[in-house]
């Protein structure tokens, strides 16, 4: 069988021919030979039948296989084990200091400077604006159009009530001669102007 030396030169090309793996020129040569060679044509038919049989068998096997978790199971096998968090951080830091040394040094310097700056700010102790122990009223003035006068009542520990009374409740000085009336509406009144008591015509319940 296949004693024809010409056929022998084509035997190695028949299987690639069936699988479509030959180049165009070789494919033309094989087709020309097959047109005139019954033996090779039978051989090709046999190879095709064999291939079909194998394909059908594989398809049957594939149909029986359970591939529902195939991707997940494959990925689970090929994924590397996840190292602990601190180990990953350590690796990341080592890589950064190895390959991004300049950036890391700059960042570390900036962080240190910010820490120093923040600690200086926090160490100032007293909050901004509260260096004094107690609050203190410096001045009170009223709107001339309002026709009211301020009454300043100082309490302990810096507490102060600023109450506004109408002109009919004008305050009179209880210590004559000290000039501590607060009846000049629209002018500045000092809370420490002296010991003053309200007139008989006092506001009721803070009324204006």
């Amino acid at each position: 069988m296949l004693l024809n030396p010409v056929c022998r030169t084509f035997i190695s090309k028949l299987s690639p021919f069936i699988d479509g793996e030959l180049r165009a020129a070789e494919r033309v040569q094989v087709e020309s030979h097959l047109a005139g060679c019954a033996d090779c044509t039978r051989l090709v038919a046999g190879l095709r039948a064999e291939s079909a049989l194998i394909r059908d068998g594989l398809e049957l096997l594939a149909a029986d296989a359970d591939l529902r978790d195939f991707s997940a199971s494959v990925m689970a096998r090929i994924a590397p084990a996840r190292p602990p968090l601190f180990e990953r951080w350590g690796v990341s830091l080592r890589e950064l200091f190895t390959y991004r040394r300049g950036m890391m040094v700059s960042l570390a310097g900036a962080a240190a400077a910010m820490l120093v700056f923040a600690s200086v700010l926090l160490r100032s102790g007293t909050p901004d604006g509260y260096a004094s122990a107690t609050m203190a009223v410096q001045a009170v003035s009223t709107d001339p159009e309002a026709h009211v006068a301020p009454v300043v009542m100082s309490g302990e520990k810096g507490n102060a009530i600023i109450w506004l009374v109408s002109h009919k409740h004008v305050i009179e000085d209880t210590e004559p001669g000290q000039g501590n009336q607060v009846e000049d509406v629209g002018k500045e009144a000092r809370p420490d102007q002296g010991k003053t008591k309200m007139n008989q015509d006092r506001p009721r319940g803070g009324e204006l």
Partner: protein
Amino acid sequence: MRNPGGSRRAIGVMVLLTSFATFAAEPKVRVTAEVILASNQGNTIDPPGLVRMKNQFSQKGFAFSSYRRLSSEKLVLVRKGVEIKLPNLRTATLRLEDMKGGTATVKVEISGLASTTLTLGREGSLFQHAGDHEGGQLILVLSPDRGTQPRRTALGTPRPAEVLAREFGGGDAGDLVAPSP
């Protein structure tokens, strides 16, 4: 080997620090501003802690039977004024006037009524009459912000208006005395 990006990063860090320092250096002060409505309509004390304020105001001659807190705000005062809309359509403007030696001078202006200038302290509170409203009287209470006190607990913990009012003493000979009606 010299890193070409190093100088740029250094400049960036300097700019960041400078802007942070500028922001931190801008004078500002934190206060708590509360608006209280005192009236003789009913006997409502809301919140209940205002009963101390009622008692202390009574000692000063005010006979309000009802004290209600209408609002409470934490403010950061800067030179540009901060406005509080009062329910009687007036506006309270709080402005940081000056900051010397760590002490803030604040001006409280009630539109169309009065303005008060005071220096802030770690203790004390300002009770500023802010006009009438719905048959009662509005009181603007200016207190140190709670956040300004934590490192000074030995000198007194931060207290809201109703607690601060407790500290008013009745025996100050220099006080103006406004007796009960």
